[in-house]
């Protein structure tokens, strides 16, 4: 076990996979100087500029060229910088990458990882803060991963690179500096297997990405109110671990889903709906109001799903 940051975990994952497989390469703006957040630091020195490739500011080409390169047998890791800029390449991701295998009747595959950092990050305002993971969960052909910890950012990025499906890989910008233990040696985290970070009998709290940490803190607080919350980190939204969630809710009888994304049409709705369909359990969601994210901290904070809101929602559900 080594204690490393969420960013360093991803850097190591990519380096290990690039050493293992010469067909893995990364492409995006500024990668040669370490990438916009430093998550590619040192890699061009080891792998050269053909495999850690700079790119023009051409999101459609970055993503679209990677589709072609993936169909031709390489395994591109595509850096979109902010998930917001990936909106400049939606045709390439949704009409092309996600559908090529199907519409060509299985003649090809598109093994690519599209890194789209999400989330609010120090007053970045409406065009640099979005969390649109539910969009991609709605698109057949795509895998959607949202790691919450350094260990998962290592193990899931490695799994994503080895996956033969296009993976939308959403790191949370606020987690870059987060440090934690990461297993030594080959560490792979499978998709579709949730992580139960805390057990509890009163309520199930499901979340992913940075919001998991808010929920974990809320669970601490709830414990002081003698409410034992089970906290589940979903890790991947597609596939998502229905089994773990439904089993937990069967025990607790109550489900709260919390995510940073806008509540209306967020992926919490899918989980709530499935749970209601299968168990008829009490469900409740916490997501952002349907408003863009503002610059001023007061405005930004107004759409944040907080620990206090999480605690309050659970207490109301449990009735104490």
């Amino acid at each position: 076990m080594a204690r490393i940051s969420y960013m360093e975990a991803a850097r190591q994952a990519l380096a290990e996979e690039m050493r293992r497989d010469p067909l893995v390469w990364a492409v995006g703006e500024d990668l040669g100087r370490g990438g916009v957040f430093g998550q590619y630091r040192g890699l061009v020195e080891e792998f050269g500029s053909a495999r850690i490739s700079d790119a023009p500011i051409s999101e459609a080409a970055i993503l679209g060229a990677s589709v072609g390169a993936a169909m031709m047998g390489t395994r591109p890791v595509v850096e979109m910088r902010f998930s917001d800029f990936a909106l400049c390449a939606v045709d390439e991701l949704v009409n092309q990458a996600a559908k090529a295998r199907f519409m060509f009747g299985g003649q090809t595959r598109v093994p690519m990882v599209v890194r789209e950092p999400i989330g609010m990050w120090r007053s970045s305002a409406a065009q640099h803060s979005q969390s649109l993971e539910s969009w991609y969960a709605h698109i057949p052909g795509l895998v959607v991963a949202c790691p919450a910890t350094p260990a998962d950012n290592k193990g899931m990025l490695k799994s994503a690179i080895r996956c033969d499906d296009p993976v939308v890989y959403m790191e949370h910008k606020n987690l870059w500096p987060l440090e934690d233990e990461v297993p030594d040696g080959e560490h792979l985290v499978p998709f579709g297997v949730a992580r139960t970070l805390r057990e509890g009998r009163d309520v199930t709290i499901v979340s992913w990405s940075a919001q998991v940490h808010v929920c974990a803190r809320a669970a601490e607080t709830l414990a002081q109110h003698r409410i034992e919350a089970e906290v589940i980190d979903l890790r991947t939204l597609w596939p998502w671990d229905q089994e773990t969630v439904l089993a937990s809710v069967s025990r607790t009888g109550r489900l709260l889903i919390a995510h940073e994304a806008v509540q209306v049409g967020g992926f919490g709705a899918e989980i709530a709906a499935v749970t209601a369909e299968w168990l008829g359990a009490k469900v409740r969601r916490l997501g952002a109001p349907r408003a863009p994210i503002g610059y001023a901290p007061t405005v930004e904070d107004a759409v944040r799903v907080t620990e206090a809101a999480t605690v309050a929602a659970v207490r109301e559900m449990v009735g104490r």
Partner: protein
Amino acid sequence: MSETPRRNIDIARLRAHHLTMCRIRALEEAALRGLGDKVVLGAIHPSIGQEAVAAGVVGALRRDDILLSTHRGHGHTLAKGASSEAMLRELFGRVGGNCGGKGGSMHIADFEVGMLGANGVVGANIVIAAGAAHAIKLKGEDKVVCCIFGDGAINRGPFLEGLNWAAVFGLPVLFVCEDNGFAATTRTASMTAGGGPAVRARAIGLPAEEVDGNDVLAVEDTAQAMIAAIRAGGGPRFLHAKTYRLTGHTGVDTAPYRPADEVAARKREEPILRAADLLRGAGVAEAEIEADRIAAEAEMSAAYDAAIAAPFPGPEAAFLDVQDVGSPALGAF
């Protein structure tokens, strides 16, 4: 344009192109028949009148070279070596179609022969082609990628992004603008500013040439020289081939937006007639020329009958080849 100065003609080569063009024509006439017979299900975009671009450009490619096409891609696909029966099966949505009946005309593809797909989104293949060439360069192979698109596509962002990408990375790709004068019902010239496709390409640093796209030998010659330069590591090239769409935009478009005499005049310059004229001029017997047409029609007629007898895929095909992880075939929906 029929006054093109006579060259020393390689008869065998021209004959082969003539046959290819006749096969494309017959395939698309069969497809149109299938539309009338309601066995072609979705939209089709015929390339009747544009066959010289397919025959000439693809004739200059090696079999292991890569081709990407457009919604109007039957000719390119057939020329690259796809089976006509598999193509008609695909258009009819049947088992044994190139895409198992799941793609149809707009997504026709045959990866076996290096044909990486038509595309339903105008211009989308330009960046995908650049990426295919990127992979070739990364792997150190000597294949060339050829991407054909229409004159309408040069107004979409990916045209700029894809050409710049190919030039910046020095990739082995030939971009071919198959200019038939129209984007659906719109005269492309009315919505395109500046000096045209080749001028735009040059401004992005690609050597570019214009060619009479109804002259199959001129197309092949120019493409051949460009492909040789590309294969030698010279980076991307751009070919602007001027032709004319003799049909409507789709199989059901009667194209009332253009005068009949314009179409009639253009019909006299269509590439199969012109190739036949050249063959005749070079002393090839009328019967031999006619034999190409007859062979092509016989092939397509047989392919039609075989395709129409093929079954539709079962509903389970809807859930196959979506994805490995979280596949709907595993009940994950």
